[in-house]
C-alpha cells in the first residue's frame, strides 16, 4: 500500500521544518529567518501501523504569487500530489497566516490548520479560541509548540484520522479563487481579519523588550558597530576556546601515532609503506582533526545561536543600503552570512533572491565570504603572525579580514551589476522575525553532532588521499628532483609576486576538494609532520613555518588568497547546479583567482615598503 502523503505548507519562518523534524526525526536546517527551506524535503513516519510521507515545502505567502522563490511550493500544491495539506501558521500573527489557509481550503478538502508557536503567542498575551476557529473553518485546528515537541502527536493523530476517513471535514469555502487577482487577494485578507477578530484576544504583552533590543541593533548609528562587536566576540570565543581541544587532540594523536608506528613494525611493513601511512595519511588527517576541527566545533554553535535568535535578517537590514548602492538585492546579506557556515549551502539559499540577475550576482560573489573550512586557517595564521597569540587581537584581526571580504564581495557585485549582469534593482521586502530564545542544549548537540561531525567526515575523506598524494609527490622523483618540488617550481614565479611561494599556491590547488585541507597540505609539504603532538603547539607551529621562510607578509597574503581563491569542489558543483551554465561556473572559478592575485600582489608590494 502506498504511503499517505502529507504536505506541510505555510508562510516562511512559521516552524514548518521544525514540525517536519519533530514528525520524521530528520534534521532539516532550521533557524529564525525567512527562506531557509528552498527545496521540498521528504521524510517518513509511522503511526498506528500506517506509513506517512511528509513533504516540507518552502515557505509561501500566497498560492497565487508568481515569485520565483515560492515556485517549488506552489507547483507542488497545485499538482495535487499530496493526500492532505497541513497549513502551519504562526499563532502570534494569525491574521496574516490565515490568508494562506483560506486559499488552501478553496483548493483542497483535506486541510488541517496547525497553530504553531502557541507558547510564544501566550507569552505575548495573544489568546486563540481554537475550538471556535475550527468550527468557523470546518477543519481540525491543532495547537503546537513544535520546538518543544508539544502537540506533535496530535498532528500525527489528525493525519491518521484523515487517512482513515475518521474525521469529518467540511472546509469553509470562500469561493473567491476565480475572482480578479486584486479582488481575490484583498478578499482573503479581509476574511482572515474578520475571522481573527472573532477568535483572537490580544493584549500586546512582551513586545517592549524586543523594541528595546531593536532600537539598538536596528539603529542607524549603532547597527553596524553592534554587528562588528558581535562578530568580534564570536571569533574571540572561537580563538580562545579552540586552543584547549586542539592541544588535547594533538596529544592524543601523538600517542596514537606512536601506537600506530608500533603496530606497523609488528606487521613488518616496509619503511616506505610505514612512512606513507604515518607521515602522509596519518599526519595530514591528524592535523585536520586537531588544528582545523576545534575552531569549527566552537564556531558552529555560536553562529547557530545568532541564527536562532533572529540576528541574521537584522544584519541584512543594516547592510541593505550598501547592497542597494551596488544594485544588488538586500537578501544577499543573508546568503553572505550563511556562507560563514558553508558556501555551498549559502549558494543554494540564493534562491530566496527572486530575480535571476540579482541571484547570479549573489551566487558568483558568495565565495568571497570565508566558510568554516577557511576560518581555522585565518584564525591560526592571525593568531601566530599578527596577534602574537593574544585572543582579543586575533578576534580583531579575523573580523578585519571578514570586513575586507565583505568589501570585496560588494565591489565585485558592483562590477558584475555594471558589466555582465546589468539591470534594474528589484523590489525588496524583508520580514524581521521576533527574537526567539535559542534552545542552547539543542544548538550544541545539533551543531556538534550534525554539522561538525559532517564537516569532519568530509574533511577526513579529503585529507587522507591528499596526505597520500603529497607523500607520493615528495617521494617520487623525476630528473633526481621530487615531483612536489617540480610543482612548487611551476607555481613559484606567480606565487612570489603574490607574496607566497610555490608550495603555498600549489597547496591551494591540492586542497580544492575541501578548503580545510589547505593548511595541513602546506604544513606537510614543508615536512612539518615529524611530531604530530607539536602540531597544536602554536610556538612549534610558528617555528616550522619560520624555518620555511614564512614572514608576516607570507601569512597575510596566504589569508588574503584563502579569502579570494576558487570555490571548493562542493561549492563549484553547487554553482553549476544553480546557474546551469558552464560559462558562469568557469567565471566563478577564475574571477576570485584574478581578484586574489591582484589583492595579494598589492598587499605584498605595500607590506614590503615597511
Amino acid at each position, binding site marked *: 500500500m502506498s504511503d499517505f502523503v502529507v504536505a506541510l505548507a505555510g508562510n516562511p519562518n512559521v516552524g514548518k521544518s521544525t514540525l517536519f523534524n519533530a514528525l520524521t526525526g530528520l534534521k532539516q536546517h532550521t533557524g529564525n529567518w525567512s527562506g531557509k527551506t528552498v527545496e521540498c524535503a521528504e521524510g517518513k513516519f509511522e503511526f498506528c501501523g500506517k506509513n506517512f510521507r511528509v513533504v516540507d515545502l518552502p515557505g509561501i*505567502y*500566497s498560492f*497565487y*504569487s*508568481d*515569485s520565483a522563490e515560492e515556485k517549488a511550493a506552489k507547483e507542488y500544491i497545485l499538482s495535487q500530489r499530496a493526500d492532505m495539506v497541513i497549513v502551519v501558521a504562526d499563532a*502570534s*500573527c494569525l*491574521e*496574516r497566516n490565515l*490568508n494562506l489557509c483560506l486559499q488552501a481550503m478553496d483548493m483542497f478538502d483535506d486541510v488541517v490548520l496547525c497553530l504553531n508557536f502557541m507558547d510564544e503567542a501566550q507569552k505575548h498575551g495573544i489568546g486563540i479560541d481554537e475550538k471556535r476557529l475550527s468550527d468557523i473553518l470546518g477543519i481540525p485546528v491543532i495547537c503546537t509548540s513544535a520546538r518543544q515537541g508539544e502537540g506533535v502527536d496530535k498532528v500525527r493523530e489528525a493525519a491518521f484520522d484523515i487517512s482513515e476517513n475518521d474525521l469529518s471535514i467540511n472546509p469553509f469555502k470562500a469561493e473567491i479563487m476565480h475572482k480578479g*487577482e*486584486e479582488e481575490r*487577494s*484583498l478578499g482573503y*485578507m479581509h476574511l482572515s481579519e474578520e475571522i481573527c477578530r472573532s477568535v483572537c484576544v*490580544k493584549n*500586546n504583552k512582551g*513586545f517592549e523588550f524586543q*523594541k528595546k533590543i*531593536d*532600537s539598538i541593533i*536596528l*539603529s*542607524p*548609528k549603532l*547597527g*553596524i558597530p553592534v554587528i562588528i562587536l558581535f562578530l568580534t566576540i564570536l571569533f574571540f570565543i572561537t580563538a580562545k576556546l579552540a586552543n584547549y581541544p586542539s592541544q588535547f587532540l594533538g596529544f592524543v594523536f601523538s600517542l596514537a601515532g606512536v601506537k600506530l608506528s608500533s603496530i606497523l613494525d609488528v606487521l613488518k611493513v616496509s619503511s616506505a609503506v610505514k612512512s606513507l601511512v604515518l607521515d602522509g595519511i596519518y599526519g595530514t588527517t591528524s592535523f585536520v582533526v586537531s588544528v582545523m576541527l576545534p575552531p569549527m566545533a566552537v564556531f558552529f554553535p555560536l553562529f547557530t545561536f545568532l541564527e536562532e535568535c533572529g540576528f541574521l*535578517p537584522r544584519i541584512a*537590514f*543594516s547592510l*541593505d*543600503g*550598501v547592497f*542597494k*548602492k551596488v544594485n544588488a538585492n*538586500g537578501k544577499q546579506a543573508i546568503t553572505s552570512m550563511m556562507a560563514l557556515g558553508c558556501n555551498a549551502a549559502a549558494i543554494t539559499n540564493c534562491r530566496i533572491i527572486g530575480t535571476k540577475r540579482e541571484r547570479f550576482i549573489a551566487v558568483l560573489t558568495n565565495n568571497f565570504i570565508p566558510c568554516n573550512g577557511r576560518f581555522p586557517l585565518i584564525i591560526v595564521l592571525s593568531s601566530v603572525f599578527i596577534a602574537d597569540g593574544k585572543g582579543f587581537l586575533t578576534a580583531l584581526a579575523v573580523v578585519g579580514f571578514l570586513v575586507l571580504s565583505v568589501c570585496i564581495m560588494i565591489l565585485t557585485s558592483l562590477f558584475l551589476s555594471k558589466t555582465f549582469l546589468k539591470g534594474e*534593482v528589484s*523590489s*525588496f*521586502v*524583508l*520580514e*524581521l522575525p521576533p527574537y526567539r530564545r535559542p534552545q542552547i542544549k539543542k544548538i550544541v548537540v545539533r551543531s556538534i553532532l550534525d554539522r561538525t561531525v559532517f564537516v569532519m567526515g568530509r574533511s577526513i575523506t579529503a585529507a587522507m588521499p591528499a596526505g597520500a598524494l603529497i607523500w607520493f609527490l615528495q617521494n617520487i622523483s623525476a630528473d633526481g628532483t621530487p615531483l612536489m618540488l617540480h610543482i612548487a617550481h611551476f607555481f613559484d614565479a606567480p606565487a612570489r609576486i603574490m607574496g607566497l611561494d610555490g608550495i603555498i599556491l600549489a597547496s591551494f590547488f591540492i586542497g580544492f576538494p575541501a578548503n580545510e585541507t589547505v593548511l595541513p597540505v602546506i604544513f606537510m609539504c614543508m615536512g612539518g609532520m615529524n611530531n604530530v603532538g607539536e602540531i597544536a603547539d602554536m610556538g612549534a607551529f610558528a617555528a616550522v613555518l619560520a624555518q620555511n621562510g614564512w614572514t608576516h607578509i607570507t601569512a597575510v597574503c596566504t589569508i588574503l588568497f584563502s579569502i579570494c581563491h576558487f570555490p571548493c569542489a562542493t561549492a563549484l558543483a553547487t554553482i553549476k547546479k544553480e546557474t546551469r551554465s558552464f560559462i558562469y561556473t568557469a567565471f566563478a572559478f577564475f574571477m576570485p583567482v584574478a581578484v586574489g592575485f591582484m589583492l595579494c600582489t598589492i598587499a605584498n608590494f605595500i607590506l614590503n615598503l615597511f
Partner: protein
Amino acid sequence: MNISLSEAGLNERCIIEKIDAPIEEKLRLYDFGFMPERFVMPMYASFLKGIRAYMIKGTLIALRQECSDKISVRLCDE
C-alpha cells in the same frame, strides 16, 4: 493630506490610503498586510537611509524606499 509612506516620520502612526504599484508588487504588499485602511508605523531606519522597518499587523517588515514611495498614507493624528 496624503503623503508617501517613506515620508512619514519614525513612530508616526499612519493609515494606508492606496498603493500605486505594479500588480505583482501590490499583491505581495497585500500578503504582508499593507492594505488600504490598515495602520502602519515606521519604526527603524537603516544607516544609509534606503530601507526602513515598519510595524504592520504586529510584524516588522522592512521595505526599500522605492517600494514605500508607492504606498500613500495619511497621518493618524490628522
